[in-house]
């Protein structure tokens, strides 16, 4: 950069106008900006759920007494189980293998008589271990149901059955424990990551492939100004997408919004700065549309989905991968995003994350300007 350029703003505006025109002429960009948020909001709001509901469970009642029938009735009435009675263990095992059942419960012969005599009968649960999360939650819920059932039965029979020690869980910010309260804010992050890294990954690569890059580079505009002007329309699109997502989340799904719009704007802008920069760097580096989209998927989108902490807990990942998450921008987006919806403004948490994201953005921006500079020389 040699001295100040008096025509800088006009040149930058010209580049921006050209980008906008290109976006306008290609309807697929709008498809991504409008359609994809709606689809993702719908999927994470309605289809993808970590709430265990109506899991197909078989029951084999080998006792056939009033106690066992009572237990079966209790299970059938419970929302977590979609009970299907089977006649034999072999039948249930075949269903487990084929996937028609996610587990089956065996009430053994002698169930009621054991209870009456004050002994402890064993109820068996066989789960489909290949579906690990479902299996875990299934046994947890069954334990709960059995405890409540036996306490209720003891109370009805006038017996003392006070468990000596119980745990009373209480969930803050999300008392009903709706998984969508966790998933929808995360999905908003995914939308932003998508627009940020995938769309921009195409921009530069497309110019290189079509041969229009040289034309751009020969215009009398400085490289940083060129890069920023190219990015600005996509920043606006990213914000528009975010706004659509938030509207659907709050108006459509009734998600609470306890923070401030200012906080949301700042966090979103910082994150967009980071992912836009990342996409542009990939684009300028690979100069090939196919390769850059694959790379953006691998290093931008998939990490945002899988390593950011919104779907899979970071604490549970192997240590090496936990270290890796520190360089995933989305990791710094998810906590503030979830909090701005469910908790409120926690500036002491927001500000460090925003600064890190801006740091990412600055780093990528510098690398992009340097990468393009090399081409001219």
């Amino acid at each position, binding site marked *: 950069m040699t001295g100040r350029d008096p025509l800088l703003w006009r040149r930058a505006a010209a580049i921006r106008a050209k980008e906008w025109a290109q976006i306008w002429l290609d309807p*697929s*960009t709008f*498809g991504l900006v409008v359609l*994809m948020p709606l689809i993702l909001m719908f999927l994470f709001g*309605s*289809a*993808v*759920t*970590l709430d*265990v509901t109506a899991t197909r469970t078989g029951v084999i009642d080998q006792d056939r007494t009033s106690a066992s029938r009572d*237990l079966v009735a209790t299970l059938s009435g419970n929302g977590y189980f979609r009970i299907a009675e089977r006649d034999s263990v072999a039948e249930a*095992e075949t269903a487990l*293998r084929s*996937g028609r059942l*996610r587990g089956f419960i065996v009430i053994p012969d002698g*169930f009621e008589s054991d209870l009456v005599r004050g002994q*402890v009968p*064993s*109820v*068996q*649960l*066989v*789960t*489909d271990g*290949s*579906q*690990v*999360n479902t*299996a*875990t939650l299934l046994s*947890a819920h069954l334990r*709960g149901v*059995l405890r409540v059932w*036996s306490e209720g*039965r003891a109370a009805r029979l006038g017996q*003392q059955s*006070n*468990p*000596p*020690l119980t745990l*009373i*869980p209480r*969930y*803050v910010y*999300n008392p009903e424990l*709706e998984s969508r309260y966790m998933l929808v804010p995360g999905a908003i992050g995914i939308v932003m990551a998508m627009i940020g890294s995938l769309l921009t990954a195409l921009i530069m690569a*497309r110019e290189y492939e079509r041969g229009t890059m040289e034309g751009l580079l020969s215009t009398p505009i400085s490289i940083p100004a060129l890069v920023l002007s190219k990015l600005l329309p996509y920043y606006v699109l990213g914000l528009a997408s975010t706004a659509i997502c938030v509207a659907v989340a709050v108006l459509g799904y009734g998600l609470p919004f306890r923070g401030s719009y200012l906080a949301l704007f700042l966090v979103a802008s910082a994150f967009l700065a980071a992912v836009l920069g990342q996409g542009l760097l990939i684009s300028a580096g690979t100069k090939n*549309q*196919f*390769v850059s989209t694959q*790379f953006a998927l*691998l290093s931008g989108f998939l990490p945002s989905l899988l*390593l950011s902490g919104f779907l899979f*807990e970071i*604490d*549970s990942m192997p240590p090496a*991968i936990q270290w890796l998450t520190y360089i995933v921008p989305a990791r710094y987006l998810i906590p503030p995003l979830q909090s701005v919806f469910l908790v409120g403004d*926690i500036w*002491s*948490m927001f500000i460090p994350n925003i600064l890190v994201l801006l740091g990412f953005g600055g780093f990528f921006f510098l690398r992009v300007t340097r990468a393009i500079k090399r081409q001219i020389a």
Partner: protein
Amino acid sequence: MMAALVRILAMAVKELAVVLRDRRVLTTLVASPVIQLVLFGLATTLEVKNVSLGLVNRDNGVVSERFLAAVAASRDAGRLTVYPNEATLGTAIEQREVLGGLILPPDLSTRVVRGDEGQIGLLLDGRRVNASQIVASHLSEIAGATGVALRPVTAGPDLVVRNQFNPNLDYSWFTLPGMIAVITTVLVLSVSVQAIARERESGTYDQLMALPMRYWEILLGKLVPAFLVGLCNGAFYVAMVALVSDVPFLGSYPLIVLAIAAFSLAVSAIGLAISSVAGNQQQAFLGGFLVIVPMILLSGYASPIDGMPDWLQPVAAIDPLSHMLVIAHGTFLKSIPSRIVADHVWPMLTVTIVALVIAHALLRRRSS
């Protein structure tokens, strides 16, 4: 008939040459999936362990001692940080320093020893829904066990759990076979979706249409690279996971390769249908993306199909990925009979035919 096959073969060879010409494309097709498999296969776990918890202990009696010892010995617990009161614990949860915290009231031990019920409070972060629930259930179990050890009571029925196919509920046994299918989907769709769009963008589309080939011959020829990419990658990953990781492989290798072939065919056909309407590479890519994301999210990989609304579940049945997942988990962990595999291969073949018919119709419409 022979002539048609020769033409299809010629188109297939040309397509392969184009796709494999760029060395970087080759690397992307081979190296990046392997990285994804390893990285995300290991990271994507819904398991809960090493959780940071807080503790507000106003009891310090025999009950809390026993209980905390049991908690420390359990698989879940990572760090246990002590807080002076509930307010500071609440702030820590808000700041996400801990997932939650145990609150032991001052009269806990006296109550239990006296014969009354003792209650332990557990405050959990409702933003992290899955982890909170699992931690709550594990700690609840520990509390119950500690109580019964201190004061045996006429307990109700005991629960004995057997986790078939995966006795230790090892998460990688679930994610690795599934990840194979997911990555193959992304790969195959990425390649097939460019098939026709690439020609449109580079201007060779008219040449393509001027060839003495029927539309369906062009389509079948263009199907080949994506199909081969899917088949080779899929077969390779299955072998890699079976040999390198500790996930057991109980089924038949030829059978799962056959299923992968059908799966690759289905996804390639879907990609080709998208490609028929795309005007350039960006549109093709975005169109592919708009299809991949629902395909993955509705397949049962990220969340169980049982949890989806009833009207959405038939859509999962059309999704080739949901069938491939059943076959993958079944072949690795359950040694399912070939009849069940066939049950899930038929829908994939049906999808292939439907997608090809749609691609054919779209191609004709666009060219006339």
